[in-house]
């Protein structure tokens, strides 16, 4: 064994290698090339994921924590791969990178680890003990109700909250979070049908889990306390009071389930149903679109004695659609307030002035054809209303005034407009069931105001009437939704048309251009979410589902209460406010921003700089860039230094010797090459041949006619820039080198005074194919060089490359396409490398640039049409 090692070390790089060692060297080349290829693959994947991160930060595409975690993990794994393979290529030389990697990775881990702050030690908290400071234990809904009951002293039914600690207890007991995260990661969030299945699965999972004994006991004991106040066997309501519901500008309206009139024996089941509704389709897509982290939402649940309501509804202490309107808006129906909230009945609407004593400003009594009431045993039933009572006002004027006074008190107490749910019990008392801040919008046209009389295009009006549930104008094809399955196929940009304004339609709002419904009120959940997402919504439009035809293009003017046929640009133009980016500022978005800081920025720009060192890598992008540069150098020098006939660099021969040298990394030649030269016919490298085809397709016409100034600029640079002095050139840069294998090609070249690198991997695996191109320098003055960089990148953009210009350097990348496409792109690059040489000299003005562009584009088009096929050997070599 020792003798073997001695042999290897003694051999060095000298000639005259015995034949058996040639085979061994061949294997060594193969191994090295394999590591190099793995490095390139990982490099490519890492860069792709980084680009995806940047896109997520720029665009309006929603993403969740699962995306961030998966992206960070994929990037880490690939960067680690890169470091590992570089160290295989040059053992011991780059060990320091492991430390850099660890440090960066720990920084990211720290950002990602959610600091769970759990406050309180009670699983259950009675309403009598709750106030607004307990929002992080019982959720804002129950905290507010506690405040209303204990501080403002307005009637609230007795009840309690199962705290967020209770929620965590339940989740941990059943080890649910890990399993849920796994399922979310495995689902393509953009696909509605997949999201739907995921939602159903997770909800089932939660409902099938058991409530731990201590939690069960705490809940049932709190229930017995309610019984003491409200009577034995009292039925209860259970509603979500999720933490995180009140995050900046988010309403969560109607995202979660409520269970009404539940008997003692079913409280635990109802509790689980409400927990499960955290993963309803509407709630999941809402969180995704608003950038709210799953783990930030813990489901506290409120449980209160059931009010057997004679009438009920929702009121707003101000007009949500118009910040200038101070009157109080009351919506009311017969029976439980449920039908206002879920939009299934169009309610009576009262407007009351806020002065004392208040005055009823308007009274709009509707036909309420149904109501919900409590069954004696359990649950609620829907009763159809016919005859007189359906047309009578559901509350008296006195009740309306009393409600208004309550609204004003609440608003004054909280110091802002409120959204209040209430019910009139069979004892005549008005109970408050919910109270939360109301989001108001700026209205440009007061709701309900008709457009100027004699509006021109009345012929195009399909529908008129209803009420503005969310202001604005939207246009798109009609899509009528009748059942859940319809929602899964809802097309992006369509107008959502439905009979009722059900909260579950909210899952489509992020993709809807506008909403039109036959039933519903501005106080319903769907209206809330529509306003939040700035989707124009028109509710209460009679016969909308019959009058509007599936697929027809319509324009919905929610302010003008009209639906027009076709696209009415004048209306749309007046309302062309950009949709707000709902992700920006959200917790998920901020998390991505934080982790991206350790990943995306590139600090190591210049490989020739003394700062270009492993120890200066502070981001994953730095490591990636550094390793790529070094790996190419390692492979290059290894190939160049091993003077055994098969692998050493050879001069390309095509009729005559070319000024190009080739290093064969693995299987880049078809057969044996000569000692000094390799024939073009003997090249097997797919990307090199494609590049070569472009380089030789159109004969170069020589340098373009130079204006005197341009020529002077070249001379000036040549005398002041030492890198352009031929005696200073490094070995690597001096010649034009191709490093090749069958599927790989790296060309470093210097034409005229500019330096360019093309690297490409092209083969049968489209997902691994890529081309990267860098172009820098030039001999002309700085503005001209910059102009040329911009020029080159603009052409490449037209052909699908992603490009970036930094100072006088242009960078371009393209990846993931199949072989033929990639070969064409390489031909374009080959052409550009040759034909843009010294172009900076004529880049005196933008006009000159455009002039030249048309010639170049027409050449490229002929190349793509195949007019120059067949490898050529240029007549005059460089």
């Amino acid at each position, binding site marked *: 064994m020792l003798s*073997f090692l001695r042999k290897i070390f003694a051999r060095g790089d000298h000639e005259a290698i015995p034949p058996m060692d040639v085979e061994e060297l061949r294997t060594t080349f*193969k191994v090295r090339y394999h590591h190099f290829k793995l490095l390139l693959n990982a490099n490519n994947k890492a860069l792709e994921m980084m680009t995806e991160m940047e896109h997520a930060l720029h665009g309006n595409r929603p993403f969740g924590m699962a995306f961030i975690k998966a992206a960070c993990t994929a990037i880490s794994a690939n960067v680690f791969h890169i470091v590992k393979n570089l160290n295989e290529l040059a053992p011991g030389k780059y060990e320091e990178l492991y430390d850099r990697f660890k440090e960066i990775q720990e920084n990211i*881990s720290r950002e990602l680890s959610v600091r769970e702050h759990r406050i309180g030690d009670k699983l259950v908290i009675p309403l009598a003990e709750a106030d607004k400071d307990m929002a992080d234990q019982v959720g804002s809904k129950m905290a507010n109700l506690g405040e209303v009951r204990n501080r403002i002293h307005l009637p609230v039914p007795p009840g309690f909250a199962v705290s967020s600690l209770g929620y965590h207890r339940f989740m941990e007991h059943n080890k649910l979070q890990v399993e849920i995260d796994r399922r979310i*990661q*495995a689902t393509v969030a953009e696909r509605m049908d997949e999201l739907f299945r995921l939602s159903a699965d997770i909800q089932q999972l939660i409902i099938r889990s058991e409530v731990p004994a201590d939690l069960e006991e705490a809940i049932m004991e709190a229930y017995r306390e309610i019984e003491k106040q409200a009577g034995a066997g009292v039925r209860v309501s259970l509603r979500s009071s999720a933490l995180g519901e009140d995050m900046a500008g988010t309403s969560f309206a109607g995202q979660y389930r409520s269970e009404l009139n539940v008997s003692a024996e079913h409280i635990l089941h109802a509790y689980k149903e409400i927990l499960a509704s955290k993963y309803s389709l509407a709630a999941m897509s809402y969180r995704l679109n608003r950038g709210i982290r799953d783990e930030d939402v813990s489901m506290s649940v409120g449980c209160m004695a059931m009010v057997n309501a004679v009438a009920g509804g929702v009121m707003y202490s101000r007009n949500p659609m118009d910040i200038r309107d101070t009157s109080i808006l009351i919506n009311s129906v017969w029976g439980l307030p449920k039908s206002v909230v879920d939009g299934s009945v169009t309610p009576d609407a009262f407007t009351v002035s806020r002065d004392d004593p208040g005055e009823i400003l308007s009274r709009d009594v509707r036909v309420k054809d149904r109501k919900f009431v409590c069954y004696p045993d359990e649950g609620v039933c829907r009763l159809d209303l016919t005859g007189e009572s359906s047309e009578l006002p559901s509350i008296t004027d006195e009740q309306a005034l009393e409600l208004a006074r309550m609204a004003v008190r609440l608003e004054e107490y909280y110091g802002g407009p409120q959204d209040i749910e209430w019910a009139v019990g069979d004892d005549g008392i008005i109970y408050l069931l919910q109270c939360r801040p109301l989001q108001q919008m700026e209205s440009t046209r007061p709701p309900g105001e008709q457009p100027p009389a004699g509006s021109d295009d009345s012929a195009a009006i399909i529908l008129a009437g209803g009420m503005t549930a969310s202001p604005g104008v939207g246009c798109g094809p009609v899509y009528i939704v009748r059942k859940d399955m319809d929602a899964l196929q809802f097309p992006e940009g369509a107008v959502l048309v439905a009979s009722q304004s059900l909260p579950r339609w909210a899952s489509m709002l992020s993709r809807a251009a506008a909403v039109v419904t036959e039933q519903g009120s501005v106080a319903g959940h769907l209206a809330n979410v529509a306003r939040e997402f700035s989707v124009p919504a028109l509710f209460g439009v009679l016969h909308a589902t019959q009058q509007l035809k599936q697929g027809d293009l319509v324009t919905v003017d929610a302010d003008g209460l009209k639906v027009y046929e076709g696209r009415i640009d004048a209306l749309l133009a007046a309302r062309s406010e950009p949709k707000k980016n709902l992700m920006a500022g959200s917790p998920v978005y901020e998390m991505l921003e934080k982790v991206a800081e350790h990943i995306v920025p590139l600090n190591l720009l210049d490989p020739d700089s003394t700062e270009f060192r492993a120890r200066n890598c502070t981001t994953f992008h730095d490591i990636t860039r550094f390793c790529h540069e070094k790996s190419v150098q390692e492979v290059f020098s290894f190939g160049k230094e091993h003077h055994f006939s098969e692998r050493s660099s050879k001069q390309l021969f095509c009729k005559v010797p070319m000024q190009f040298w080739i290093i064969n990394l693995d299987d880049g030649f078809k057969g044996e090459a000569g000692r000094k030269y390799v024939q073009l016919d003997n090249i097997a490298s797919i990307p090199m041949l494609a590049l070569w085809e472009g380089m030789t397709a159109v004969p170069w016409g020589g340098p373009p006619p130079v204006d005197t100034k341009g020529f002077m600029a070249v001379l000036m640079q040549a005398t002041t820039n030492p890198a352009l002095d031929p005696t200073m050139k490094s070995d690597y840069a001096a010649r034009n080198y191709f490093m090749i294998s069958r599927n790989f090609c790296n060309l470093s070249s210097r034409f005229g005074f500019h330096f360019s690198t093309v690297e490409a991997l092209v083969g049968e695996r489209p997902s691994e194919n890529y081309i990267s191109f860098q172009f820098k320098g030039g001999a002309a003055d700085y503005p001209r060089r910059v102009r040329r960089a911009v020029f080159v990148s603009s052409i490449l953009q037209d052909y699908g490359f992603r490009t970036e210009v930094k100072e006088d350097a242009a960078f371009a990348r393209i990846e993931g396409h199949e072989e033929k496409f990639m070969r064409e792109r390489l031909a374009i690059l080959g052409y550009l490398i040759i034909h843009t040489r010294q172009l900076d000299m004529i880049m005196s003005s933008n006009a000159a640039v455009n002039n030249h562009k048309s010639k170049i584009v027409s050449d490229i088009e002929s190349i793509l049409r195949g007019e120059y096929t067949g490898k050529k050997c240029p007549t005059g070599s460089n």
Partner: protein
Amino acid sequence: MQVDAFSVLLVDDEPEFLETLVKRLKKRKLTVHGVKSGEEALQWLTKESVDVVVLDVKMPGMDGIEALRQIKQNHPLVEVIMLTGHASMEVAIEGMELGAFDYLMKPMDIDELLYKLQDAYQKQSLRRQKIKKMKEVVEAGDAGN
């Protein structure tokens, strides 16, 4: 790339996922066997020849990282690809430090997995070649002495 048929062992406790993956890889001309736990995987490796193992990270009983450790210890030439539904940077790096060939996340494209399998197999056969060469040299050296 021309790749000869090689042998793959899939380890995943999700029966549905396992079954589908076995079927789909068999269609791609690989010799594939599936087992449901790390323990079973180690047992299988003692009696059958396997080139590449695809290992789920989170499994009841012996977890993926432990299984990886033992595979690498007892069968250093076998390449292991980690495949997981739980994205975790820490586990990914731990796995790769222990010598996993790569770390993939579900859902993954079947072709992506196939490419990784081919690359892992190629790495392995290059290592085998090298070892064979070394042996020959050593033997030749010994014979010469």
